[in-house]
C-alpha cells in the first residue's frame, strides 16, 4: 500500500433503512450507501466496505481505524422489536417501571397515554431479598426463589432478563449472584444487572435503563460478535470501535455488554459532524437536522459543542412531550428524535387525519417504490411522486425504484380514503411529516429557551436535504448548510470523534471533612482505568485526562459539575473547591447560599484524545454555475403548485458558484431540493449554502 493513502480509516453507520460507508484514504474520501440488512446487519456492512475498498484498491487488512455506529438499538425500542424480556425485581417492587414517577406528562390533558413498559406485567418476577440504603443486607437473597424463576424463564422462552433490585447501586451483590445463577441455569438468556448498567439511585430510571439494555442486548451483542468474526475472516486487523451516544468511542466488548449506550450513536456522529461544519464556517448557533430512513433527529449546537445530558427518553409519545418516553440514564448528546424518516409509513385514521410514522417500512420491505413487497405508502414514495427524487439517481442508481408503485400505494393507502388523487395524497403526506418535524424542533427549542429563527440549519442524512427547504420555511430559518456527502453525514462525524472513556464513581465526601488521600487514591485508580480504555482506541494520539466532581449543598437532591485541577489534590484545594462550587452555582442559579455545608457526591475522570478545532474556510472566488443536466417537475409546497425546476449534478458545482432557486441538486447519497424561497451557493468547503430570498414586499 502506498504511503500517500495513509491513514486508512473506515466508518460505517447502520440506520434503519440504509447502511452508510465512508472510507478515508489519505486525502481521498469514498462514500457508499447500501440497504440495511436487518436480519443480518453485517451483510450490508461488509458489502459496502468491500465495494468502497475495491474502489480505492485497498483491502480489509489495510484498515487502521474502523469506527462503527448504529441506530439498530433505538429502532428496536421504538418499533418494539427487541427481545422477549423479563424483569427480576425485589419482592414487593414488581411494578416499579409502571408506577414510574406517578406523574402526568401533560397537566391539562386528561386523555394522555403513558408509555407501554418494555416488560409486560406477567413477565415481571420478584425475589425475596433486600439491601438498605447503605448497602447492608436487610433480607438475604432467597436462592430457591431464583431457581424457580429460572425454570419459568425457560418455559416462557425468555431471551433477555433485566435484574433491578432496590438499592443495588449501593451493593450489587444480590444482583451479581442472580446473574451467576441465571448464567448457570439458563445459559442462552442474556442478563443485564442494573448495578452495572446504571449504578445510580432512583429505582425507576435505573430499572428502566436496565430493561432497555436487556431488551436490545441479544440483538446487538449477537450482531457485534458476528461482525467481529466476519471482518476478522476478511483480514481486518484493527479493533472495531463503537460510537457511543455520548459522542466518543468505546470498545466492541463494552458495547456488547451495554448496548443501551449505543442508542443514539448514529445521531451522535451527526452532531459531531454538524459541530465541525459550524466551527469551520464560524457559525455560532446551529440547528442540526438529520433525517434518515426511519427517524429524524434535531440537535442544538452552540459554538461547535452539542449539548450533553445524562438522561435520554427513547420514543416519546404524545407530541414529543418531555416525560412521555422510556427513560435511559446514559451519557448522551442531547437531541430530539421522532419517527419521521423516508421509510415512515403514512395512513389515514378513523378521524380522516393523515398520520405519518412512527413505524417505518425500513429496508425490508422498504417503501412501495422499491418493489420489494412493501405496499404501504411512505415518505419516500411521496417525495418520489412529488418529483423531489430522480428515480434514475436514487442511491447512485444502485437501488431501482418505481414511481408507478409509489403512486398506487399512495392512491390506495391515503388518496382513496380522502377522495384525493395520488399526487394530492403525496403532497399531504410530505406536508404532515414536515410539520411533525417542525413541531418537534419548536418544542425542543422551547425546552431550551432558544429562538430557532436565527439559527443556521445543517442538514444531512439521506432524506434531510429533500426536506430541509420546507422545514426551514416552517421554522423561519434563513440559512441552510448541506455539507459534502450529506447523505452519509453521521459516518463522517464518527471519524472526527475522540477516543474517550469516562468513569463516574460515587464516593461521598463532605467538603469540611475533605480527605485528600482518599480522593487522590480514588482519582488515580480511575485515571489508570479510563486511560487504558482510551489509549486502546487512541492509536498514536495522546490522551488527556480531565477530572471533575459532582457537588451540592448538603440536603439538596441534584448536583452540579465542578472542574478539578489537572494535578494531584492538595489540602488547600478544599477552599478552592468551595469557591469554584459557589461560582458555578451562582452562574447557574443566580445566587449561592453563604456558609452552607457542601458535599461531593461523585467523581468523574474523562480520558480523551484532544480534538483540534478545524481550520476556518477562506471565501471562495466567485465562479459561473455550470449548465443544468436536465429539468424535473416538482411540487413546491410553499407555492402550492407544481413547477419546473432545473436539475444540477452536485459534483459539477464548484466552490464559488451560485444558482437561484428553485433547483434540484442530485448526488450519490441524496438530493437537495432548493425551494423557490431559497437561492443556493457552494462555499470553499464544498458545502451547499441555501439562503432565503429577500421577502417579496
Amino acid at each position: 500500500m502506498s504511503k500517500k493513502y495513509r491513514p486508512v480509516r473506515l466508518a460505517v453507520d447502520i440506520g434503519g433503512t440504509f447502511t452508510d460507508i465512508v472510507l478515508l484514504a489519505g486525502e481521498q474520501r469514498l462514500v457508499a450507501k447500501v440497504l440495511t440488512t436487518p436480519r443480518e446487519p453485517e451483510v450490508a456492512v461488509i458489502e459496502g466496505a468491500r465495494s468502497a475498498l475495491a474502489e480505492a484498491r485497498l483491502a480489509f487488512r489495510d484498515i487502521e481505524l474502523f469506527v462503527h455506529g448504529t441506530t439498530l438499538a433505538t429502532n428496536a425500542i421504538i418499533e418494539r422489536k427487541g427481545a422477549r424480556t423479563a424483569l427480576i425485581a425485589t419482592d414487593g417492587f414488581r411494578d416499579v417501571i409502571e408506577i414510574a414517577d406517578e406523574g402526568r406528562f401533560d397537566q391539562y390533558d386528561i386523555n394522555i397515554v403513558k408509555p407501554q413498559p418494555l416488560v409486560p406485567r406477567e413477565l415481571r418476577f420478584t425475589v425475596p431479598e433486600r439491601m438498605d440504603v447503605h448497602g447492608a443486607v436487610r433480607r438475604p437473597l432467597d436462592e430457591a426463589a431464583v431457581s424457580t424463576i429460572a425454570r419459568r424463564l425457560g418455559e416462557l422462552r425468555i431471551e433477555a432478563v433485566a435484574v433491578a433490585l432496590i438499592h443495588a447501586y449501593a451493593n450489587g451483590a444480590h444482583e451479581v449472584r442472580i446473574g451467576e445463577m441465571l448464567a448457570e441455569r439458563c445459559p442462552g438468556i442474556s442478563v443485564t444487572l442494573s448495578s452495572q448498567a446504571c449504578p445510580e439511585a432512583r429505582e425507576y430510571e435505573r430499572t428502566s435503563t436496565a430493561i432497555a439494555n436487556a431488551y436490545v442486548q441479544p440483538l446487538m451483542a449477537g450482531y457485534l460478535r458476528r461482525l467481529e468474526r466476519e471482518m476478522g475472516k476478511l483480514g481486518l486487523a484493527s479493533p472495531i470501535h463503537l460510537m457511543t451516544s455520548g459522542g466518543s468511542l468505546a470498545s466492541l466488548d463494552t458495547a456488547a455488554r451495554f448496548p443501551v449506550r449505543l442508542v443514539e450513536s448514529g445521531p451522535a456522529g451527526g452532531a459531531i459532524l454538524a459541530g465541525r461544519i459550524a466551527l469551520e464556517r464560524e457559525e455560532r448557533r446551529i440547528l442540526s437536522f438529520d433525517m434518515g430512513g426511519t427517524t429524524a433527529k434535531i440537535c442544538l449546537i452552540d459554538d461547535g459543542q452539542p449539548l450533553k445530558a445524562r438522561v435520554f427518553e427513547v420514543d416519546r409519545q404524545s407530541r414529543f412531550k418531555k416525560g412521555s418516553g422510556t427513560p435511559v440514564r446514559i451519557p448522551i448528546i442531547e437531541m430530539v428524535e421522532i419517527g419521521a424518516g423516508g421509510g415512515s409509513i403514512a395512513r389515514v385514521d378513523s378521524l380522516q387525519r393523515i398520520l405519518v410514522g412512527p413505524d417505518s417500512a425500513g429496508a425490508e420491505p422498504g417503501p412501495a417504490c422499491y418493489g420489494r413487497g412493501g405496499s404501504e405508502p411512505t415518505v419516500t414514495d411521496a417525495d418520489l411522486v412529488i418529483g423531489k427524487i430522480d428515480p434514475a439517481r436514487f442511491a447512485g442508481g444502485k437501488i431501482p425504484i418505481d414511481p408507478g408503485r409509489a403512486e398506487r400505494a399512495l392512491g390506495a393507502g391515503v388518496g382513496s380514503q380522502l377522495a384525493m388523487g395520488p399526487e394530492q395524497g403525496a403532497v399531504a403526506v410530505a406536508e404532515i411529516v414536515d410539520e411533525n418535524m417542525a413541531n418537534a424542533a419548536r418544542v425542543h427549542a422551547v425546552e431550551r429557551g432558544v429562538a430557532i429563527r436565527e439559527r443556521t440549519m445543517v442538514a444531512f442524512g439521506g432524506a434531510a436535504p429533500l426536506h430541509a427547504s420546507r422545514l426551514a420555511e416552517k421554522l423561519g430559518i434563513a440559512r441552510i448548510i448541506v455539507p459534502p456527502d450529506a447523505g452519509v453525514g453521521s459516518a463522517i462525524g464518527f471519524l472526527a470523534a475522540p477516543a474517550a472513556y469516562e468513569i463516574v464513581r460515587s464516593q461521598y465526601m463532605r467538603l469540611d471533612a475533605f480527605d485528600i488521600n482518599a480522593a487522590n487514591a480514588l482519582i488515580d485508580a480511575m485515571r489508570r482505568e479510563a486511560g487504558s480504555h482510551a489509549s486502546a482506541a487512541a492509536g498514536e494520539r495522546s490522551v488527556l485526562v480531565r477530572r471533575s466532581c459532582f457537588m451540592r449543598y448538603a440536603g439538596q437532591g441534584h448536583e452540579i459539575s465542578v472542574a478539578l485541577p489537572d494535578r494531584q489534590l492538595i489540602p488547600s484545594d478544599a477552599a478552592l473547591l468551595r469557591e469554584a462550587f459557589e461560582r458555578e452555582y451562582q452562574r447557574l442559579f443566580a445566587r449561592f447560599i453563604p456558609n452552607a455545608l457542601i458535599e461531593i457526591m461523585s467523581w468523574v475522570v474523562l480520558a480523551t484524545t484532544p480534538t483540534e478545532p478545524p481550520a476556518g474556510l477562506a471565501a471562495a472566488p466567485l465562479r459561473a454555475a455550470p449548465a443544468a443536466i436536465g429539468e424535473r417537475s416538482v411540487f413546491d409546497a410553499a407555492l402550492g403548485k407544481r413547477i419546473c425546476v432545473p436539475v444540477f449534478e452536485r459534483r459539477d458545482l464548484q466552490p464559488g458558484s451560485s444558482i437561484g432557486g428553485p433547483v434540484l441538486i442530485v448526488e450519490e447519497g441524496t438530493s437537495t431540493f432548493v425551494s423557490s424561497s431559497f437561492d443556493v451557493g457552494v462555499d470553499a468547503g464544498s458545502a451547499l449554502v441555501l439562503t432565503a430570498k429577500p421577502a417579496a414586499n
Partner: protein
Amino acid sequence: MSKPIGDIELQIMWNRLIAVVEEQAQTLLRTAFSAIVREAGDLSAGIFDRQGRMLAQAVTGTPGHVNSMAASVTHFIQHFGLETMREGDAYITNDPWMGTGHLNDFVITTPCFHRGKLVGLFSCTSHLMDIGGIGFGPDGTDVFMEGLYIPFLKILDAGKVNETLMAMIRANTRLPIDTVGDVYSLMACNDVGCQRLVEMMDEFGLSNLDELAEHICSKSREAVLAEIAQLPKGAWSNAMTTDGFDGPITLRATTTISDAGIHVDYTGTDPQARKGINVPLAYTTAYTVFGLGCIVASRIPNNAGSLGPLTVSAPEGSILNAQKPAPVCIRHVIGQMLPDVVFGCLAQAIPDRVPAEGTSCLWNIIVRGSVKGGQVGNYGFSMAITSNGGTGARPQADGLSATAYPSGVKGTPVEIAEAITPLIFWKKELRPGSGGQGRTRGGLGQEIEVESGIGEPFELLAAFDRIDFPPRGRNGGGNGAPGAVAIKDGARMFGKGTQLVRPGERLLVRTPGGGGLGPAGARDPALVAQDRREGRS
C-alpha cells in the same frame, strides 16, 4: 410610540415567556432541599405583569399552587405598592389566605427591572416540609397551632438578605437546613427568571411587556370563550361526600355555563371543620378552575386571560371558604376533590368528555420521627412520601394507575425516601382488583408497606380520604376500591390524625382505585383477558 409588534413575533415571544418560566421552575427543582419539591415537584413558578396578571406559568408544578399564587401577586402589589419596589427587592409570605392555602407554602415575589424600569414580577412557591407548630398534619384546631405565620415581609432589600427574618425562620422549624435552603432556592429561581426576561427583552427590543401582556390575555380569553361557546348552556348540580375528620363532609356545587363563562357556586356545602382540613377560597378557586380547564380548555395556556372566564364562589364559613383562624394545614385533601365535584356537574352536560371519579387527593404518607446518631442541623426527620391512587376511567381509555390527578405532584422514589428517613419500604406495588369495573376501568391503586429500619417508633400524620367514601363509578361503572390504612396483620388506623407506628410494626397503606365508566358488560373482551393475564383484575 414604537411600531406594533407583528402577530408572529408576539407568538414567538409568548412561547419564549413560557420557556422562561419553565427555566425558573427548573432552577427551583434543581436547587431545592425539600424532597417534596426536588423529587415530587410540589412547586410553581410564573411571571406577572405590573397589574398582577399572570402571563405564563411553568407547566412543571402543581395546579393548587399555580392558580392561587396567581391571585397572591395582586396582594403583594396592593400591600407594598409598585412605586416602593427597588431592584434587588423580594417579598415573602406564607399567609394561607393571601398565598396558597397553608403555612407550609412560602410564596416569594420578585419585581423584575429592565434598564431601571419595573417591567414585571416573578413569583414562585414551594412546599416547605416543616414550619414548626403541630407539623404537617390535620390535628391543629386553629391556624396558629400549624406553625410560623409570616405576614407580607421583605426577604431581600436591594439585594441584602433580611437576616432577622431568616433567623426567625431557622428557629421555628424542625428542619432548619432544608427550610432555609429552600428560601434561598425560591429567591434564586425568581432571579434566574428575571435574568432570562431581561435577555429576551433586549433581544426583541422590548421596553415593556404591555403589548405582549395584552396579546396573551386577550388571545387566551377569546380562545376559552370560543371553547365555552360550543358547550350546552345551563346549570347542573352535583354533590360528593368525603370522609372528613370526625364525620363525613358533603361538598355541593352548581355549575352554570353561559356565554360569559363558567361559574361554579358551592352553596350548600358543609361548614368549616374543627380540624385542619379547611380550604381558603383561593385554593378552592385554584382547583375548581383547573378541573374546568382540563375539560373545556386543555390546549390553552394558563394565564390571567384564560382563567378570567372561569369563576368560583363559596359561602363564607363553609369548608370551601374557611375563615381565619380556621386550621387549614391539609387543605389539599378536600381541595383536590373539587375537579371531581365539578366533573359530576359537567358529566350531565357533556357526558362523553368527562371521566369517572378518581382518588382525587394525594395519598401522601407523612411521617416524622427520630434518627440514629448525629444529624447535622435538623431535628429528626419529617417527610411527606408522595403517593397516589388510581384515576377515574376515561371515556376513551382506562384510568391511569398510581397517578396523581388533579395534583401535578410526582411520586417519591423509594430509594430517596430511604435516604432521607430511617424507614424501610417492604412493598410498593400496584393493587390488583382496585380499579372500578366498567366499559373502561378505573386506574389501580397501590399497596405500600413501611417499617422503621432502626427499631424506633415513628409518627404517621395521616391525611387520607376516600376510605369511607370510595371514588364513584359513572354511567353504570363500578366504584373504585376504597383506600385503607392499618398496621399489617393488626389494627385498622384512622384516615386522619397523628398516630404511632411501633418498632417491628408494618404500616400498611392501600391507595384507592379509580371509578369505572359505563357498564362492565360492555368492556372489550380482549381487555378483560389482558387484565386477567396481567393480574390486574
